[in-house]
Every structure is written in structure tokens, then in C-alpha cells.
């Protein structure tokens, strides 16, 4: 059914270059549609999508919902606050109940790594990962890639610096897999308590030579074409990993001083929501290098592309 090699989107690890290319190309077309006065297409008419959010989300859920509505799908929102999960229902039972309502696509966010794959194994629906724990957030990775291609032309040969709380970031992991697949080089930089602990990471054959580490933020951004500042994931930290946000900002925040070390045409990105004055200074978040609002717009286009292609990639699919 899927117009891609993948049947579900669990993450960007293992997704082929061809599939990513197809998604990005379709997203560009949907991006154009979003600029039209009439932004709706009938691609998913008659299909039902459930947004199954076990974690709080505003922008991702809204973005998915908008993408689904732009594709003319029927949408159902399911959050733990309004569900039987709080009454003790198991994940499988929740899914089976939802599936019995004849759902075609499940968009899921959950605190646990692997929940999208688990749901796909227990359901006939197409599953799209909207973030599973600190594992992956593939549509965010795709929209970041779309934004870079839009602004810089291509990902091939580009250098991307990801700064901040990488250990708890599903965005970083999706970006690492997706961007390196598309030929970019990724430099990771953050305090030692917020980066992956094992340099064995570099032993992944798929990542060999494509990912490097840097502890000095100014060195990390020096030759970067794009800088992605990550939000401090306070909700996933179960320890005092930083002495203070002040020190973090002084050593790892994207400030004017850090920006001065960047290339002239660097683009500054952030998956949002921004802790202004912590990982990113306000002047930079709102400044000429920032493409953060483009990321938000591209988020809808990418999610439209993913849903459209996984559902078969045909008009009126």
C-alpha cells in the first residue's frame, strides 16, 4: 500500500535515501499547496487518522492534525488526559479498542522507546511515530532536512551542528540518522552530562565518518552551514545534570558571541519550544539567520507527505 519502501514511519534509522528523497520532494509540493488560497487536497478522503498522544504536545499534535485535515482525512484526537489509560487500560487494549473503530493511520507519541513499533506489531493500521521517548522524532528530522534543503539547496556535503541536550533528544537522533543518510556531516556538541556517554556511537558503520563530537560550542559552529539548538529536556532529566541554566547559557547557548564565530550565511534552527535566553538568545531566535518559523510551516508539509505516501501516494487514496 505504501508508496515508500517502509510501511510505517518508526524513525529515520534504516530509512533509505530514496525514501527520504521521495518524502522531501512530496513535502516541497505540499509546501506549495499550503501557499495557495485553498490549501486542502482530497488525498486521504475517507480515511481516518487517530492522533494517539500519551505525552503532552501542542505543536506536533496541531501540526499533524492540520496536515491530516489538509489531506481531507477524518481525524480523532486521543490524549491520556481524556482516555481510559488513566483508568488502567493497557497499551494493547487501548490500541485494540481504537482499531475496532476502523482506524487507518495511527500517529503516536509516547514516553517509551519503541512504542510505535510495538503498536504496529499489534495492529493493522499504518503507524507514524510522533516521538517515542528519547529515541526518535522522525517527522521533526524530516522537516529539519526540508528546511535546510529549502534554504541551502541540498544536504549533500553540508555541515550541521547540533548543540545542547543531545542525550535526551529524539530530534537529535532522527537528525543524525536522516541527515547522514542524505550526505551531511553532523557535529554534536553539549555538556558532557547531556551528550551520549559512549563514543561507541561512532562505531555504527552507517555513521562512520559522518558524525563527530566537539565540546567547544564555538568550534562546533565554526564551519557549520546550519546550527540546530536543542531545548533542554527538563522533563526527561531525572538528575541534576547541570549546575545552572546560567552556566549552560554561557557555555553552550547560541549567543551573539557564538553567532559571530559562524559562517555569514549560517541558518539557525530550533525544534521548539524555545527556552529563550537559555539555549538560544531571543535576538537570534527572531533574527535574520533564524529559520524557526519556516520549520513550523515545513512541519505541516512534511507530515502531509508522510501520511500521503504511507497511505499509498495516490490522489484519493
Amino acid at each position, binding site marked *: 500500500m505504501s508508496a515508500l519502501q517502509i510501511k510505517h514511519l518508526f524513525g529515520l534509522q534504516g530509512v533509505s535515501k530514496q525514501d527520504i528523497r521521495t518524502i522531501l520532494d512530496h513535502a516541497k509540493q505540499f509546501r506549495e499547496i499550503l501557499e495557495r488560497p485553498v490549501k486542502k487536497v482530497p488525498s486521504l478522503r475517507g480515511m481516518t487518522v487517530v492522533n494517539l498522544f500519551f505525552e503532552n504536545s501542542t505543536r506536533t499534535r496541531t501540526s499533524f492534525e492540520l496536515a491530516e485535515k489538509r489531506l481531507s482525512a477524518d481525524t480523532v484526537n486521543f490524549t491520556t488526559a481524556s482516555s481510559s489509560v488513566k483508568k488502567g487500560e493497557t497499551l*494493547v487494549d487501548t490500541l485494540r479498542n481504537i482499531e475496532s473503530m476502523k482506524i487507518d493511520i495511527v500517529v503516536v507519541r509516547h514516553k*517509551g522507546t519503541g512504542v510505535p513499533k510495538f503498536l504496529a506489531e499489534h495492529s493493522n493500521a499504518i503507524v507514524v511515530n510522533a516521538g517515542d521517548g528519547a529515541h526518535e522524532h522522525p517527522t521533526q528530522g524530516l522537516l529539519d532536512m526540508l528546511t535546510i534543503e529549502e534554504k541551502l539547496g541540498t544536504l549533500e556535503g553540508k555541515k550541521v551542528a547540533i548543540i545542547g541536550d543531545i542525550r535526551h533528544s529524539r530530534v537529535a537522533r532522527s537528525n543524525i540518522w536522516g541527515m547522514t543518510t542524505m550526505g551531511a556531516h553532523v557535529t554534536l556538541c553539549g555538556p558532557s552530562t547531556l551528550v551520549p556517554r559512549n563514543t561507541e556511537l561512532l562505531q555504527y558503520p552507517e555513521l562512520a565518518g559522518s558524525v563527530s563530537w566537539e565540546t567547544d560550542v564555538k568550534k562546533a559552529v565554526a564551519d557549520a552551514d546550519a546550527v540546530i539548538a536543542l531545548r533542554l529536556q527538563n522533563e526527561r532529566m531525572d*538528575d541534576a545534570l547541570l549546575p545552572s541554566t546560567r552556566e549552560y547559557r554561557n557555555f553552550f547557548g547560541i549567543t551573539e558571541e557564538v553567532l559571530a564565530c559562524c559562517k555569514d550565511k549560517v541558518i539557525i534552527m530550533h525544534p521548539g519550544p524555545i527556552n529563550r535566553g537559555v539555549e538560544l538568545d531571543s535576538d537570534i531566535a527572531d533574527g535574520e539567520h533564524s529559520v524557526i518559523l519556516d520549520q513550523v510551516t515545513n512541519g505541516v508539509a512534511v507530515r502531509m507527505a508522510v501520511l500521503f505516501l504511507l497511505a499509498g501516494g495516490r490522489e484519493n487514496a
Partner: protein
Amino acid sequence: MRRKHTLSDFNCVELKNVKFWNGEKFEARDSVYAGFANRKFAFCNKEDLADLTVKVVDCNGALVIPALFGLGLDFMEPLRDDVYTFNDGLDAMHRGGFFGGLYESAANPIDDCEKLSAANDRLVKDSIYSALAIKFLGAFSKDFGSDHLSEMLELANGLDEDDDSFEGVAGFGDGNAAIPHSRFLRLAMEYGKMTGKRFFFQPMDKTLRKSGCVHEGAYSDMLGMKGIPRIAETIAAYTVLETARFLQVPVHFKQVTCGETLDLVRNARKNGMDVTCDVNLYHLLLDDSCLTELSSAYHILPPIRSAADCEALWKGIEGGTVNAISMNHTPVREQDTEVNFEDSVPGALSLEVALSAIWNKLVARVGEARAIELLSTAPAKLAGVDVPAYEPQVGGVANFVVLDPNKAHVVTKSEFAGHVSNSPLLGKELSASIVGSYINGIWTEN
């Protein structure tokens, strides 16, 4: 309805075409007989069974191996007897060829003689199975993890006015709980030293483990899962060893997962300490690359570590640092495994599949005699079992398992006893298959 076995339940068997372990090597035999003779279940001559019904099994050259002994048994009762019962656990032992095991309940710590007596009644005295060699590990703290000492002297002596034959515990351990804080650890060992029993620890520092559920390494990093570093084990092991050295108490480390801990064990032995250790079956069979499957079947604590750690454990087995291979048989009900990895309950069944899974690998690394020692005699010795379970001559005790090392099979749910099947080997192909077992006169054919 529970009932005791009568003699009519017991079997006499003739195993045709087998390779029989004679204590030194396997030798081909046209037939091996076992049955009730001279008041025990023993190897027999054909004529000893002349008037009895004899079950004949053609074994196609399979191996007759001394029955195994399982370290780390927990049969879940009394929490979920609708899912798994003591009898299911004993059934699993027969299916897997175990003549005995060391039992320790995570749900119901044996921290006084009343509990010990109750467990002994259910598992040994009142079981529908003939008495297996079940030994018990007593808790050294009340309810595991409290700051209150259990009645270790009574537990060790097996004080029971109504039953002279009632044995005390084989040793002391607080299940798979992290090691206690240093002050209580000292107190427990100081008090328990009076019993002369060994202390069993699963070395784990709870602050370093925190909410970790997998090995901290490249895979946990890329999967975004909270890891448990090796130092959570080594720091705990070091703390235990220093306390044991200070107090001169024998200790055993359960489920060692990395080479660094084995180094500590080796050094302690060099310094004259009485330290033993075991390695979990699954830590020898799997490495953390399995995490990429994101299956809760691999949720085992302590965690399955890296390929390098796995190899270090094998080296520890080859070099003799590891005393025994443990089973850590832990049933988990289906609804607790049918969730994502981090929310699942850790634990794995092992008794039914252990021998088929590890025999060929183990023999390739250490040879047949050492393989049998690691699975049978050494763990039994650690649990204080001092009577032979297998004597390879006519008239000798006959507890054995018949294994076809060349018959591969895929593990299915039906292989497991009870209403659970939580094993990382479910659906996997194993290179060997158990033909059957003969334990205390019961032939269980697989």
C-alpha cells in the same frame, strides 16, 4: 486437586541408542535402563525391570546427560497463581531436566521460618511431583531492602518443632534487589556470619542504576533508553568484597555481567577470599544488539550487555573464574510483557530451554565435562546439595536429561509450563532439542 505420587506414577525406561555420560566422556550404548531398584531410582540392568512396565524410547544417538541444577528460581506464587504456580515451576524443571534448584522469591521474601516452612511445604513436601532437590535462599533483611535484620539464625537452622527433617536455608540474599547501604550491609554480614552461610548478592548500585533498564552503551545511546553502566555492578561488587574481606564472610555474586567484575573476583580469590560467582544463561547467549528489536522479551535485569562483555563472560567460564551458569527463571504474566520495553516487567523463563540453547556453545568452548559441571554439579554445590544426583553405574542414582545436540527446533509457547512464555528465545531456533528427562523416577518426554 493436589496429590502425592504413588509408585504406579513412576516410570521405568529403556533408552535405546544413546550416548551415555560415564563420568568422563560420552560412550555409545545400545540401551540404558532406569527404574526403581534398591529403594531408589537408579540405573538398572534389564533383568532388574523384568516384572515391570518399561517405557522404551529410541533416542537416535542422543546424549544422556546428568540432570541440571538451577540457580535463581522464582515461581511467582503467591501473587499470581492463576498465571503461574509452584507446580508449573516444578513442571518446567522436569521439562528442562533439572533435578533441583535454589529458590528465592522476589514477591514473598523468605525472611522467617514460617515462610521458609510454607515454601518448603508447597515446593517439596506437598508437591504433586516427587521431591526435587529444592534449596532456599533466605533474606537477610525483612521484606528485602529494609533496615531490619531477618531471623538469620533460625533460618539457617531450619527451626521447626514439628519437623525434624526440615532443613535451613542454603545461604542469604535479598533477591535481585540492589545491595543495601554500606552500614546495613555490614550489620547483615556481621550477624549472618554466625551461621557460616554464604551471602548471595546481585551486585547493583541502585543510585547508578536509577531508572536504567538496559546496558549503557552505543545501543542505549542511539535508542534513547536509560542505561545501567558497568560501574553500577563493579562498585557494588567492590563494596561487598571489601565488607566481606573485613568480616571474613563467604560471598557469591549472582548474574555477573561484565569482565570487570570477574577481575574483582579473581583478585579477591588471590587474596584468599572465599568468593564464588555465576553467570546468567542469557548473558552468555545474547548481547545488547538485540535491543534494536525493541522487544520487551529482552528486558532482563541485570541487563544484557555488549558483545565484548559477553565474550569476557565466556573467557571467565573458560578460565574457571565463573563457578556456574545460573537460570534466573522468572515468569512474567503476558500483560506485563505486552507493553513497550521500558514499561514491561523484567524477567525471563529459562528452565525449559536452557540446555537446548547453550549445550553446543558451551561444549565448543569448554568441553563436555566442564559443561556438565557448570550446569549441574557446580550450581548444586553452591546451593549446598551434597548428595549425588547422577551416578553412572548400575545401582547408581539416575537423574538425567536426554538431549539431541543435532536436532534443531524453534521455540514455541507450548514448550513452557504455566500460562506464560516470556523468553527472548521464543520463536528462535535452537541448535539442540531435549528428548526427555528422568528425574526422581518420572520420565517427561518433550
